[in-house]
């Protein structure tokens, strides 16, 4: 078969593929279009928007959630985010050190109280020269933990009966004879 004939067949099939096969007539089509115009209906939104935008929105929400959880101080991992090195540490005076040594030991807060306080406080200052106003927080009402004294009955062990050992009779030990090397050789 020649290229010419094949091309003709290709064109015929291509034409058939775009032929109007619907039974809808022109009047119906016109009526539908004008009805949609009259009802001020918007063209149908493409499904593509939903398929593309929903993962993007999900990713954005995840990023925001991660940033929120990690806190603003951790976003930048560079050196400027946090003070580094001993030079930036506050210098304690000798008097303060002595005072700290003499101060009574600080009692630890209960674990639950510490956690809640940390959550409210949030991260500390995130960079050099950053001054944050100290947050005015209402005192947290934590019921004092009053542990009832443990009732333990005093132990009263019975006396242990130990049999007395018999007195050991003194052992007579005869004085050892001293044998010299010369005597041993003679024997």
């Amino acid at each position, binding site marked *: 078969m020649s290229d010419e004939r094949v091309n003709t067949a290709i064109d015929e099939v291509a034409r*058939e593929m775009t032929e109007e096969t619907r039974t809808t007539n022109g009047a119906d089509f016109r009526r539908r279009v004008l009805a949609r115009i009259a009802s001020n209906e918007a063209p149908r939104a493409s499904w593509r928007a939903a398929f593309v935008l929903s993962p993007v929105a999900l990713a954005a929400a995840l990023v925001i959630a991660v940033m929120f959880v990690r806190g603003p101080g951790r976003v930048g991992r560079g050196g400027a985010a946090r003070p580094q090195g001993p030079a930036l540490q506050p210098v304690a005076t000798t008097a303060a050190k002595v005072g700290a040594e003499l101060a009574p030991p600080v009692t630890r807060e209960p674990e639950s109280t510490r956690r809640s306080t940390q959550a409210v406080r949030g991260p500390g200052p995130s960079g050099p020269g950053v001054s944050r106003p100290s947050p005015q927080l209402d005192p947290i009402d934590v019921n004092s933990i009053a542990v009832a004294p443990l009732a333990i009955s005093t132990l009263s062990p019975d006396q242990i009966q130990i049999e007395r050992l018999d007195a050991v009779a003194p052992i007579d030990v005869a004085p050892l004879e001293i044998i010299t090397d010369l005597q041993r050789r003679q024997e």
Partner: protein
Amino acid sequence: MSDVDLVARARQGDPAAFGELVDRHRAAVYRAALAALGSPADAEDAAQDAFLLAYRRLDSFRGDASFKTWLLTITWHQAINRRRSLASVWRRMVTPKTEEEAEAAMAAIAAAEPTPEQAAEREQLRRGIRRAIRALSPKLRDALLLAQAGDYSYEEIGAMVRAPTGTIKWRVSEARRVVRKHLKEHGHGDVG
């Protein structure tokens, strides 16, 4: 009355004038959508959307190109957007009505052939051509289908798909060559 006059009247709020434009260009719009989508149901939806969008954008029509070209450009964009959507792809995979309808039409054509052998051979060839056209890249397939739809000049197709006329002609020619090659590789030994 010309398209430009009808557009002017439609802009002034005359729905009958726009209805006349719908009647005039419905077939061209529908076939362009069908060329892009391959499904009559999708094509009709896309054609309706195209007219709706055109009505809303009537103020932006300046008359640089013909109303038909302007309308077909809107139609093509609507159809391509729809083609890219996953829903449309899924619908075509699940309900390949077009193929059934086309095969029925081809069977009817084949039935008019003089001998059953010739009819069977011709039908087989047409099926092969249809498969080969579907396997073309979108650019080549669009150009071929639009060119053979009979409603558009190469210039109009170029305006729709935003490509020079020479490029459209090359794509049509290349599409035919690729289809012939496909046929030859798939058992139609007497081709080319």
